[in-house]
């Protein structure tokens, strides 16, 4: 499963090839250091101006907030559970209008943009239906591992050990005791055309994945690692550094699945201990120090080790 990027026919060879055009302008009401914002900015650069965005409740609903509306594309705001279903309507609606010759084919791409709350929890049913129907759309999940917009409550994307406002650290609790849901495998089981994880510290990898997906029809799904300084209680200026640590420690594997075949697009050979990554965020601070939980730390490291062993690189 080694990387074979050198043989890929791509317009994105280095960061210098990043498109200059901006569809997400500065001055949004998002928090300083938002990792998800960088992911959306890059995604829109790759997808271009004819992208129609479907948004749902979550942090990026704020992109519409006038006068801070920073997104240049059209955007439809759908209920929390219904993003991919609303996308179905747009895709089919345009197709019917074009077939009736009531509209010239706009060549548009429909991008569902949600956080992990919608993707992993409340919207999973609608996503399942859309992928199963083979809907020709893009889905970008900015995964900041909790309900960031309502005050950082636990979601099923929250990793083990993280404190959130509903999995607080108390005498009897060391934060979240559950494991992060494996959305990649759940989505993959639906056999979408394209599925990938992305991280903003690897922008070329991310642009190439969007480029590759845009040459395919069907469901094209992305899960973006999204550092959330407000919820993770990390330094806003360290967002990209933390993102890189997640990739290098092996916490966030970069991979893609094309018609069911999984390839890791970057393999962290050295994999420093996960502590290096966890220590950058105060949501994990209770795991360290005199009262820390050695057991939880070992469990997190073991899960990461087990993952990389299981893919037999």
């Amino acid at each position, binding site marked *: 499963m080694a990387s074979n990027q050198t043989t890929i026919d791509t317009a994105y060879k280095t960061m210098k090839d990043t498109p200059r055009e901006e569809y997400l302008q500065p001055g949004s009401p998002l928090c300083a250091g938002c990792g998800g914002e960088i992911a959306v900015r890059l995604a829109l650069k790759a997808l271009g101006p004819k992208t129609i965005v479907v948004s749902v*409740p979550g942090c990026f*609903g704020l992109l519409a907030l006038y006068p801070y509306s920073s997104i240049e594309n059209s955007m439809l*705001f759908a*209920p*929390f*559970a219904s993003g991919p279903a609303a996308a179905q309507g747009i895709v089919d609606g345009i197709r019917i209008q074009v077939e009736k010759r009531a509209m010239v084919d706009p060549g548009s791409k429909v991008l569902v943009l949600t956080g992990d709350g919608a993707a992993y*929890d*409340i919207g*999973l049913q609608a996503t399942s239906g859309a992928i199963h129907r083979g809907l020709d759309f893009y889905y970008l999940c900015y995964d900041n591992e909790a*309900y960031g917009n*309502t*005050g950082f*409550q*636990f979601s*099923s994307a929250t990793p083990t050990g993280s404190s959130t*406002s*509903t*999995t*607080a650290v*108390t005498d*009897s*609790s060391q934060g979240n005791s559950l494991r992060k849901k494996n959305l990649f495998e759940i989505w993959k089981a639906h056999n979408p055309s394209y599925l990938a994880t992305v991280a903003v510290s690897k922008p070329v990898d991310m642009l190439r994945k969007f480029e590759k997906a845009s040459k395919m029809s069907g469901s094209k799904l992305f899960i973006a690692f999204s550092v959330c300084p407000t919820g993770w209680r990390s330094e806003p200026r360290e967002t990209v550094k933390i993102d890189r640590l997640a990739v290098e420690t092996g916490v966030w594997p970069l991979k893609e699945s094309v018609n069911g075949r999984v390839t890791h697009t970057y393999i962290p050979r050295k994999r420093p201990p996960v502590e290096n990554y966890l220590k950058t965020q105060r949501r994990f601070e209770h795991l360290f120090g005199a009262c820390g939980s050695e057991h939880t730390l070992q469990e997190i490291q073991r899960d990461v080790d087990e993952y990389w062993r299981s893919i037999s690189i």
Partner: protein
Amino acid sequence: MRRSGEVKVSATTTINKKNTSSGALKPGTYFMMGNFACVEAAIMAGCRFYAGYPITPSSEIFERACVRFPEVGGSAIEMEDEVASAAALIGASYAGSKAMTATSGPGFSLMMENIGLAFITEAPLVIVNVQRAGPSTGIPTLVGQGDMMQARWGSHGDLETIAYSPSSVQEFFDLTITAFNTAERFRTPVFVMADQVIGMMWERLKIPSIEGVEVLQRKVMDAKTRAKPFDYANDFIPMPIVGTGTNINVDSLTHDYRGYPSTDYTVSESMIGHLLGKIRRHAEEIWKWDGYLLDDAEELVVAYGSTARSALAAVKQARANGIKAGLLRLITPWPFPDAIIERYSRRVHNIVVPELNYGQIVHPVRENAQCPVIGINRAPGALMDPTTIVDALEVVAN
């Protein structure tokens, strides 16, 4: 301004275990947010199961429940959406636990099907709706009163619902306890229709000693007696609890006295008659209202929730302006206190109904009043300005 002797309580404040063997907060004076007060009341009322999903402006209830419920031997669990939250309450209720959730408009909409299920299966539970500006996502962080009719008619089919509408942090606390008692007595879902201002406001709260608080427990069916689990001849029937040896079919289909589904018209008639009748026949026992300067009032303001606070200021101002105004504050919008409205409407010239919506509670008021009724309606997103109500009183009085 905090006074001496007041204790400030935040989402993560834990209790002093030495002094509170029951798990409830020590009696005394606290400075507390309405949403936190709601959680403390639920614990005092014996609620030990909370299934939630975060939504502004109710999330503080959930966050505090996640800290407090485990402290008192209870459980607060985060579900994947509001459909799941409401369904979990029904399960917990049939397992014998007092159960609650809190939400706001969009979540309340998603709960509607399960509210109907709780009603037809007679599962006692409490749903708190901290109302915000709608429709749809609306303005999540600002006040609205747009879900009042939804609380009455939101779920499909014939329902009779019970709802309380608090106007202060203290009342949010008191009515949450009352809501649990009413749910237990009537075996039905009960709503606490707060709003963003009441939920997020910090006010003085007096927490009583638990010995002085009336806490009702549902009657439980004795598994050995093989009683009728859905005896439609009686208003208040013991509840079969799963796990106690009661083999019971709890069904969303129209069901007979045994719990078995039926398409027989007489079964439909007796079941619906029972479900509606147990509340309608005892509506007067549920009604709560509060009056201010009603004795000689000529112009009556009927208000509820945070708008009742504006209305109180307006009535005082109108009195100063020489208008004999009075305030009737509806604490139970549902079941609607029709006889109360009729009684007071006979004594006054006009009724004005200020609401942060475009006309909801004004309709049953108009249906029952024997005098002209004028709605004062405002878009949600800001409190009602008392001068708006004073202006209306000036117009109707002259």
